[in-house]
């Protein structure tokens, strides 16, 4: 690593973008290195394929480079990069033949008509030991449940609960309101919880 690159390692994202805008390629590479893992994981959440996720990661940072001049310091570079990631991932998904997904709006109600009594009350599996929770079978069950979600819901769940982004960051990346993010997240969590309920009942 050159001395110049070692210096920019200490810089903030905004400083890195500003330096890259002036032609500092080391600054651009540090920005890439800082964000590449999260961009890959976000891309994976959309495209569900390692090779496609890597392609989206490459396309994302190429776009970041070519659009450096358009970035305005009024927004966070991370949000800008996540938004570009989402756009590339969605373009790739649209190029694929869409698979049918179930509507999570149409699930039967969990409670009776007056909304006061559960028809099928939740089980008591919140305290299940971690060893059991990490089983391969359970992991597959979770993947399968999340895979059933409509795409616009699945990506919100992955960005919030797997990547740990805030609702504000997810909203910014996807171009939707914070209320929409929370609504999709809540429905997604309830759906996956329901699926796991079935698993733990067996």
């Amino acid at each position, binding site marked *: 690593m050159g001395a110049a690159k070692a210096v920019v390692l200490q810089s903030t994202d905004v400083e890195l973008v500003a330096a890259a805008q002036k032609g500092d390629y080391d600054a651009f590479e540090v920005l890439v290195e800082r964000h590449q893992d999260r961009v890959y994981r976000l891309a994976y959440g959309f495209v569900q394929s390692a090779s496609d996720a890597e392609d989206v990661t490459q396309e994302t940072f190429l776009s970041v480079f070519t659009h450096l001049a358009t970035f305005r310091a009024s927004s966070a570079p991370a949000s800008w990069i996540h938004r570009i990631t989402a756009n590339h991932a969605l373009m790739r998904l649209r190029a694929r033949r869409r698979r049918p997904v179930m509507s999570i709006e149409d699930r039967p109600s969990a409670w009776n008509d007056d909304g006061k009594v559960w028809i099928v009350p939740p089980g*008591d599996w919140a305290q299940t030991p971690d060893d059991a929770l990490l089983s391969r079978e359970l992991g597959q069950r979770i993947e399968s449940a*999340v895979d059933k979600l409509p795409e616009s819901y699945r990506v919100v769940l992955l960005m919030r609960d797997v990547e740990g982004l805030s609702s504000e960051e997810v909203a910014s990346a996807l171009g939707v309101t914070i209320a929409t993010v929370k609504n999709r997240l809540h429905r997604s969590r309830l759906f996956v919880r329901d699926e796991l309920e079935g698993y733990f009942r067996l």
Partner: protein
Amino acid sequence: MGDKLNTVTMKCEIAVALVLEFLEGNLNPEVRRSLESHLAKCQPCSRLVATYKRTTQLCHRALLRQPPPELGDRLLRFLRERTLQNKGE
């Protein structure tokens, strides 16, 4: 169990709708107290909250995908080829 739950003021349907904002600490004090009172009396909703939280932990552990270790090298190589060549470097 049905008769017992019917004595609870807040409907389970409403309680479930509030779980996310409750766990994020965003409910106003009055609504939060009402929900906490409901949860204290309603075992199914209390279990729902606990398993809802557990679901988020499970998703994180089961679905976090680490990039391949060689991603960084391949990415920088790709970007150098696509960006620096245009500048004659």
